[in-house]
C-alpha cells in the first residue's frame, strides 16, 4: 500500500495548500439554478496497472446533485476510472494515473493537492460492505470524523445520527449503536458504509457496484437511497446492471475495452437517451444484449 505511485500524483508531502475558499461543508440548500452545475470534470484520464493501460483518455463532466452511472462489460475499466476520481487508484500497487480531475476549479492531481483532502471531499462506497470489524456501529460512522477536528461528544453523536438517518438506517439501529458493525445484515452493512462516507459531508460520493453483494430487497433500498442522497450530494455509481443504471441515474456513460484491452468512453448521454436512442452501434449492441 504505497501512495504517490503516479507521475501525476504529486508527492503529497511536498506542499500543503489549504485555500480558505475550499470549504468542507457541502453546498447544502441547493437551488435549481445550480442543478446543472458541473461538480467534477475528468480531463484526458488514463490509468495504468504497472505497464498495462486500463483506461485510456476519458473526458467527462459530472453534473452536481445528480446520479451519474458508469456501465459496461467487466474489464472495461469503469471501476478503475471511478477510483481515479478520488485518487484511490494510486493506492493499488503499481497504479498510475495521467490527466486531470477538476473539482471546484482545481485539479485534484495538481501540485498543491493532498490526496487525503481530496478523499474527504470525494467519498467512496465499495463493492463489498467493509465496516471496521473492531468498531461499533456508532464508531464506524464516526471513523472519518476524527480527521475533521470534531471533538465534542454531542457534536459527534448528532452527526452520527444525521448520517444514519440520511442513509435510511437509523430506525433499524438506533437502539444498537454500541453493537459491532459486523453484526448487521449485508444490506445494512452497506448502508452503514454509506452513512460512514457521508458523515464527513463530502461533495461527491463514488459508489463502486454498491449493490453487487446485496439481495434484491437490500438493493432496492440502496437504490432509493441514492435518489434521496442526490438532492444533497453528487453521486457517481459504477454498475454492471443496466436496469439499475436505468432506474437510478440521470446520465449514463458507457465504457468498453477494445482490441487493445484498455477501456474507453464510448458514449455519455442522459440516461433516457442512452437506453432508447444510442448513437453508437457498440452501445446499442451492449444494451440490447448482443454482447457483454
Amino acid at each position, binding site marked *: *500500500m*504505497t*501512495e504517490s505511485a503516479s507521475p501525476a500524483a504529486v508527492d503529497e508531502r511536498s506542499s500543503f495548500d489549504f485555500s480558505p475558499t475550499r470549504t468542507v461543508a457541502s453546498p447544502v440548500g441547493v437551488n435549481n439554478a445550480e442543478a446543472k452545475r458541473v461538480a467534477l470534470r475528468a480531463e484526458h484520464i488514463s490509468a495504468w496497472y504497472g505497464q498495462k493501460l486500463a483506461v485510456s483518455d476519458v473526458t467527462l463532466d459530472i453534473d452536481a446533485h445528480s446520479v451519474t452511472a458508469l456501465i459496461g462489460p467487466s474489464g472495461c475499466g469503469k471501476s478503475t476510472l471511478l477510483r481515479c476520481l*478520488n485518487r*484511490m487508484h494510486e*493506492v493499488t500497487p503499481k497504479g498510475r494515473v495521467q490527466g486531470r480531475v477538476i473539482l471546484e476549479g482545481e485539479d485534484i492531481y495538481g501540485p498543491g493537492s493532498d490526496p*487525503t*483532502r*481530496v*478523499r*474527504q471531499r470525494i*467519498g*467512496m462506497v*465499495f463493492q*463489498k460492505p*467493509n*465496516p*471496521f*470489524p*473492531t*468498531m461499533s456501529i456508532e464508531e464506524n460512522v464516526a*471513523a*472519518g470524523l*476524527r*480527521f475533521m477536528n470534531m471533538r465534542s461528544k454531542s457534536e459527534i453523536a448528532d452527526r452520527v445520527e444525521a448520517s444514519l438517518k440520511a442513509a435510511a438506517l437509523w430506525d433499524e439501529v438506533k437502539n444498537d449503536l454500541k453493537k459491532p458493525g459486523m453484526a448487521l445484515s449485508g444490506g445494512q452493512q452497506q448502508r452503514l*458504509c454509506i452513512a*460512514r*462516507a457521508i458523515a*464527513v459531508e463530502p461533495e461527491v460520493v463514488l459508489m463502486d457496484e454498491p449493490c453487487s453483494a446485496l439481495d434484491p430487497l437490500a438493493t432496492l433500498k440502496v437504490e432509493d437511497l441514492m435518489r434521496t442522497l442526490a438532492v444533497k450530494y453528487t453521486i457517481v455509481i459504477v454498475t454492471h446492471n443496466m436496469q439499475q443504471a436505468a432506474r437510478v441515474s440521470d446520465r449514463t456513460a458507457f465504457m468498453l475495452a477494445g482490441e487493445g484491452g484498455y477501456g474507453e468512453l464510448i458514449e455519455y448521454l442522459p440516461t433516457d437517451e442512452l437506453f432508447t436512442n444510442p448513437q453508437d452501434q457498440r452501445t446499442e449492441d451492449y444494451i440490447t444484449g448482443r454482447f457483454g
Partner: protein
Amino acid sequence: MASTTDLGHRPSRSVLVGGLHLADRLFKGVTGFAAVFVVLIVGGLFYQLIWRAWPAITANGFSFIWSTDWNPSQGIFGAGAFLVGTALTSVAALILATAVAVLVALYLVEVAPSRVSRPVSYMVELLAAIPSVVYGLWGIYVLGGFIQSTLGPMLTHTLGLFIPFFDGTPRVTGLLSAIVVLTIMIIPTVMAVSRDVIAAVPGSQREAILALGATRWETIRIAVLPYARSGILGGAILGLARAVGETLAVTLVIGNRVSIPHTIFDPTYTMASVIANQFQEAEGATHRAALMEVALLLLCVTFLINVVARLLVWRVTKGQRSVVIE
C-alpha cells in the same frame, strides 16, 4: 482435501476387493505410527522429567516455586530467583522486541517497495538462523564491552537518576546483556508472524479508511493494527516462549549468580541457564533432581505459553499456511 478426493474415489474403491483396502489401511497405519510417535515424544518428555524430578518435588514441596534460596551443598533448593530472572529477561526482551518487530513488519507491508522489503525481510529472518552459541559469543566479546563502556553509563546517567533499578555499575555480563541478546534473538519470530498477519488484513479495510481521507499512519492505526492485533499478540507470545527457553546465549551473558538482581546490570540466572551451567557438575542426586524440577517447571511454562500463542495465531490466520511461500 481428503473429503473431496473421496468423492470421486469411493465408487471405484468399493469395486476393488479387500487387497487394496488392506494396502491403504496399512499405509494409514504406517504414517499414523509416525504421527503417534510425535505424541509419544511430547508425552515422554513430560513423563521423563516428572519421573527424574520426583525426588526433588516430594522433598522441596511448593516452596520450590517461591523460595529464592538455592544452596546445593546444603541441599536447599528454591527456584524463585531463576523464575524472577527468567521473567525479567524474557518480558523485557519481549516488550523491546515486539515494539521493534511490529514497526518493522508495518514498514515491510505498508511502506517499503518490494525491492526493499524483500531483502530486509530476508535479512531479519536470517537472524533467526544464527545459532544460539554464536549470539552468546558475540554477546560476551562485542556487546558486553559496548554495554559496559557506552550503553550502561548512558542508562545510569539518564534513567538511573530517577529509577534506582537503572543506577548500578555496568558490567560485561548481567541482566541487561541478556535482555539485549534475547531482544535481538526474538525479533525475527515476532516480526515474521506480525508481517504475515498484517499482510492478511484485507485491502478493503485499508481502502475504507483511506477513502475517508486517512493518512498512511492513520490507516495503520485505525484499520490495520486493530484488525491484526490478536495475531500480533500471538506472535509476541511465541517470541516470549522462545525467550523463556533460550539457553546458551543467555548462559554466556547473564553472569550466572543465584540472586535476584537489584539493578539492571547485576548478574543473575534464568531457569534454562542454571540447568546448562550446573547440571554437568551437579553435586549428587538431590542437586540433579532439583535441576530436573527446574527443567520441568521450564517445560510447563513454555508449554503453556506455546499453547496460548498457537491458539491465538491459529484463530487469526485460520486456514492460512504456517509455511510461507512467495
